[in-house]
């Protein structure tokens, strides 16, 4: 599982984007003109990509009950993404609806964190990835229920109920895998070690976040890190899993710099829609 290291020219400009107040750097020009649109894409794309990854398990889960459970989570996430993309399209004001945004943007225009686009791996990787995301998601959604944008607040309220349930499910699985057999423990620890670096991106705020917070509809993600750490470390302790050390943290998803995995995933996801542009389904 390789991350996307920032290399070559443009590195300086990219890092400047993290300084509050500076003009945020994005991979595509013109989009930064509408920070709230950018912000909504981040929320939506996390869920769309993660929901899609989970849907890949359908028919292949370890037991029937889990086929149903993973499909539930996938459906919730894709449903949230759909509502968020619809809102984003309205905010953008160029007539793009949720399908136009989901199926006709290239990878470089997606704004999800890299964590969610990584391949599913084995069940341990999928569950650990989901758990790490869910613990963060609940915190984000809790704050968004107070968003000044009423539509966003409404979406967040509904999504929060779903997200709490997802966390309950994945936390229990992390415990079962961590404190199950020697094999499940080893797989869970390996998954945790491999995925941990990608969690840092969830807590990196930039000017887009600052603008959203200033407008009353955003979340100070940096402030979430301690609480997230508490929740996660508690469950990991119950699971007898070791908390990985913080080290190099891959980043870039929030501004369109993704891993190679996203392009391949979108090639699959978008192929049919793009083969028949404008056709009704």
């Amino acid at each position, binding site marked *: 599982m390789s991350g996307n290291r920032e290399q070559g020219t443009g590195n300086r400009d990219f890092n400047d984007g993290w300084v509050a107040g500076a003009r945020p750097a994005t991979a595509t020009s013109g989009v930064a003109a509408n920070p709230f649109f950018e912000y909504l894409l981040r929320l939506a794309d996390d869920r769309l990509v993660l929901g899609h990854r989970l*849907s890949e398990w359908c*028919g292949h889960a370890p*037991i*029937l009950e889990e086929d149903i459970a993973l499909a539930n989570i996938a459906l919730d996430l894709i449903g949230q993404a759909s509502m968020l993309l619809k809102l984003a399209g309205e905010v953008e004001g160029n007539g793009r609806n949720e*399908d136009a945004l989901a199926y006709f943007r290239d990878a470089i225009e997606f704004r999800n964190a890299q964590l969610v686009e990584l391949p599913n791996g084995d069940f341990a990787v999928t569950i650990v990835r989901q758990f790490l995301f869910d613990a963060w998601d609940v915190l984000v959604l809790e704050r968004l229920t107070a968003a000044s944008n009423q539509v966003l607040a409404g979406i967040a309220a509904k999504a929060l109920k779903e997200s709490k349930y997802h966390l309950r499910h994945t936390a229990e699985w992390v415990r079962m895998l961590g404190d*199950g057999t020697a094999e*499940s423990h080893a797989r869970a620890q390996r998954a945790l070690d491999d995925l941990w670096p990608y969690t840092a991106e969830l807590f990196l705020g930039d000017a887009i976040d600052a603008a959203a917070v200033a407008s009353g509809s955003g979340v100070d993600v940096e402030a979430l890190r301690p609480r997230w750490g508490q929740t996660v470390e508690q469950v990991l302790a119950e699971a007898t899993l070791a908390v990985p050390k913080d080290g190099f943290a891959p980043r870039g998803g929030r501004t369109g710099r993704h891993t190679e995995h996203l392009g391949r995933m979108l090639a699959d996801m978008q192929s049919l829609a793009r083969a028949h542009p404008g*056709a009704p*389904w």
Partner: protein
Amino acid sequence: MTDQKSPASAPAAGSPDDAARVAEFEARIAQGESIESKDWMPERYRKQLVRMMSQHAHSEIVGMLPEGNWITRAPSLRRKMVLLAKVQDEAGHGLYIYCGTETLGVGREELVDQLLTGKAKYSSIFNYPTLTWADIGVIGWFVDGAAIVNQTMLAKASFGPYARAMVRICKEENFHKKQGYESVATLANGTPEQRAMVQDAVNRWWWPSLMMFGPSDKDSPNSAELIRWRVKRDTNDTLRQRFVDLTVPQARAVNLTLPDPDLRYNEQTEHWEFGEIDWKEFQEVISGNGPCNRERLAARRKAHEDGAWVREAAEAYAAKRQAVSAA
């Protein structure tokens, strides 16, 4: 671990009471009574039910694969969610029916083993490949449509757990069929490419759907007994005709043709007459030589084997918790 299955009463083989008990059993059925898992039943009845129910459950599970094939490529978010929910429902249906077989003393482990080693049968229809997106809509329309005709009958089956599972399933399946037909209608009224796509899908799925109802009654050895025991209530041919009569007008409503030059309405019988089914193809497919038989089973086997360590982990975790609370 405690005995977790509700045991069925096992009849003493060859005892003189048997004839009397069978007569009493058949009288109950003739009166429309429900047989529950703890009631006395002839061993043959129990076996037939386990066979029917497990085949049905296996079909739901294997059926997740041809449709699941298109989830990642679904062309709109709404269709993506609808398809994912449908496949999830199918997992649920398999699960409901396996629960029914558990009440007859057959564990799910055993049935899963029979499926994966190729010993168990499942509906032939799922051995065909889904080649285009249109196949998804057509499957909802034809395959769920055929299943509904069958299951509506089974909802009145004499065995309580099976009948109840059928009622639950029918509610969900009606919904699937409507969505499938809606997709077909959208494609039929869409671009020329979409029209061609859906007509092609219809041409490939029509005959296999008719074969879902099984061999003609004269070639079906189990039918008479199953009907007397109200496990089946109609013959294969009757159900097949019902499906054809329902579906032909639906095809005409969206200007799609069915690939049968002999299809003709009989004014007197008020039925749609149709051509000869190629039973050789049917035999090949149910014997394991269909286009996807090997792939379907290989996929299920892989999921099962890859998942073994996960299932074991959950059990180990529970065992540790039990040991802690017992201490």
